[in-house]
């Protein structure tokens, strides 16, 4: 039933002695009270428990963003519900009331208010979102090979990435997605590769995310980092872990048969423990590290230096790794 004019409303129909209540004030009062309660509950009660937590600067920022958006969204949703319920109760169809409500087409005040309010909300969210991207260095998302938002001292060139790390510089971790496991390479600490993700507390970490087969997505939940791992692409994301503890890493992109099992756990360590860990891990993988390709911003398995191949491999025609030696007709494309 459409909105009614005062003259046609049930209250007015009861007689000239019964004044038409101010529906706007009624609805507005209930809406304001409920919105206030809901926003306070969202901010103070639910807010600290919203995902992804506060274990890192980016995660902290994301929780703040979700709180702000929830606080902005709750009054909108409450207004819709209050108006809906008020309409059901006050403006419901009475017995023998077969008339349509009056058309409200051309109500300039309502149209202006509607356009103004929604525009202000959207523009505020746009401004807030842009500021948050800038303020939190990409908000934990992959920014591609040339990040716009980056912390001071962010390492971008390969030469800078392989230079030994010193406190204050971002720790570079290359994340290599492959079916069905992430491996992590630490170019500033000898270039070793490992299946365990370790990062230091209170230091900026630069994740250079790539893949050597299909598209994966590196999702370090507690750190608030989620960046696609694309073959041949260096997708850079930043975070600063602030709390010691475990990290859960999952693949966030359907990547094949065992995608659901593509997860592992990492650790945020104190700086001294992290340095000790890099030393021990470098020693543990000392036998395989020299066999890895030279560190590069992407990890292209089809470009293998020819000098790496022995005479048997050359004689068999196996002069590149993966894909390159599978002709399209061997035996047939699916």
């Amino acid at each position, binding site marked *: 039933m459409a909105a009614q004019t005062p003259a046609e409303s049930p209250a007015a129909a009861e007689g000239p002695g019964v004044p038409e209540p101010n529906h706007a004030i009624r609805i507005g009062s209930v809406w304001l009270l409920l919105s206030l309660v809901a926003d306070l509950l969202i901010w103070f009660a639910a807010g600290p428990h919203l995902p992804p937590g506060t274990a890192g600067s980016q995660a902290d920022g994301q929780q703040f963003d979700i709180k702000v958006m929830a606080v902005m969204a709750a009054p909108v949703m409450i207004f819709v519900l209050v108006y809906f319920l008020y309409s059901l109760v006050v403006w419901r169809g009475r017995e023998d009331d077969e008339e349509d409500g009056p058309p409200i087409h051309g109500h300039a005040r309502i149209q202006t208010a509607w356009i103004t309010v929604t525009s202000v909300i959207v523009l505020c969210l746009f401004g807030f979102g842009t500021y948050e991207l800038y303020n939190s260095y990409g908000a934990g998302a992959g920014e591609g090979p040339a990040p716009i938002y980056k912390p001071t001292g962010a390492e971008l060139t390969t030469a800078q990435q392989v230079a030994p790390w010193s406190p204050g510089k971002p720790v570079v971790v290359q994340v290599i997605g492959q079916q069905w496991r992430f491996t992590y390479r630490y170019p500033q600490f000898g270039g070793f590769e490992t299946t365990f993700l370790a990062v230091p507390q209170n230091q900026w970490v630069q994740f250079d995310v790539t893949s050597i087969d*299909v598209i994966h997505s590196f999702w370090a939940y507690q750190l608030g980092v989620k960046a696609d791992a694309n073959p041949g692409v260096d997708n850079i994301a930043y975070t600063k872990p602030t709390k010691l503890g475990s990290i859960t890493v999952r693949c966030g992109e359907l990547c094949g048969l065992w995608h659901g099992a593509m997860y592992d756990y990492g650790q945020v360590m104190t700086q001294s423990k992290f340095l000790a860990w890099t030393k021990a891990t470098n020693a543990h993988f000392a036998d395989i590290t020299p066999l890895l390709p030279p560190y590069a911003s992407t990890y292209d398995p089809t470009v293998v230096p020819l000098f790496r191949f022995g005479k048997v491999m050359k004689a068999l025609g196996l002069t590149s790794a993966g894909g390159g030696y599978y002709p399209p007709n061997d035996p047939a494309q*699916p």
Partner: protein
Amino acid sequence: MSLPVRVGTLAIAFLAVVGGVIFVVIHYLLASPPTVDYSAGVTPDHGQTVNVVLQEDPQTTIGNRPDWVSYFIQDPKTHAWVHTTLFKVPAGSMIHMTVLGYDGCTPARNPFWGKVTGTVGNVEYVNGKSTRVLDTWKNCSVGHTFSIPGIGLSVPMASPTTVKENNNLCATSPCTSGPKATITFTFKSPTSTGDYFWHCRIPCGGGFIDGFGGPMQTIGYMTGQMEVVS
């Protein structure tokens, strides 16, 4: 058309559709290779040694995918080779694996998987000789890997190493002759029961994009599950 005929026709059509759905579900969706049981007669969580024997072949001539590389598992009772990648082991036991590598060499996409991890002593034995690392790029040394990510196990599967051997690989599955490398290693099965997926990390799905399709994504060929039971 009379009412009984119409009702009968409708019933037959309905049953045909239901039958078709049941056939598809059973034949395609629920179909699974057999599971080879290595847990019989072993007391779990007592550290007893269980011998599991596999072979990896350059083809699968017994099935409808003759071009696909595949693992086979030996039945511990009959010693027959079973075309499956599902096997059952007791929890908390020492699993002694013997893998007959009949397939030729292939460079790994990531040479990192040339390192042995997760075995007792982080070592494997290739034709009786202990090794910790195999260079999959430089040497014709590795055909596949046997990896169980859930327990951190990753072992490169050695291959025949010479040009002559690689040009004369076994051509009939399951292989009983031909050039091969014999790989052995031991790992402890987890105490937590459940299914642990395992797979090959070398792109051996010839004919598929980057070698990672086909047998690499199909249970019964280059990936499967180790069921740990108590």
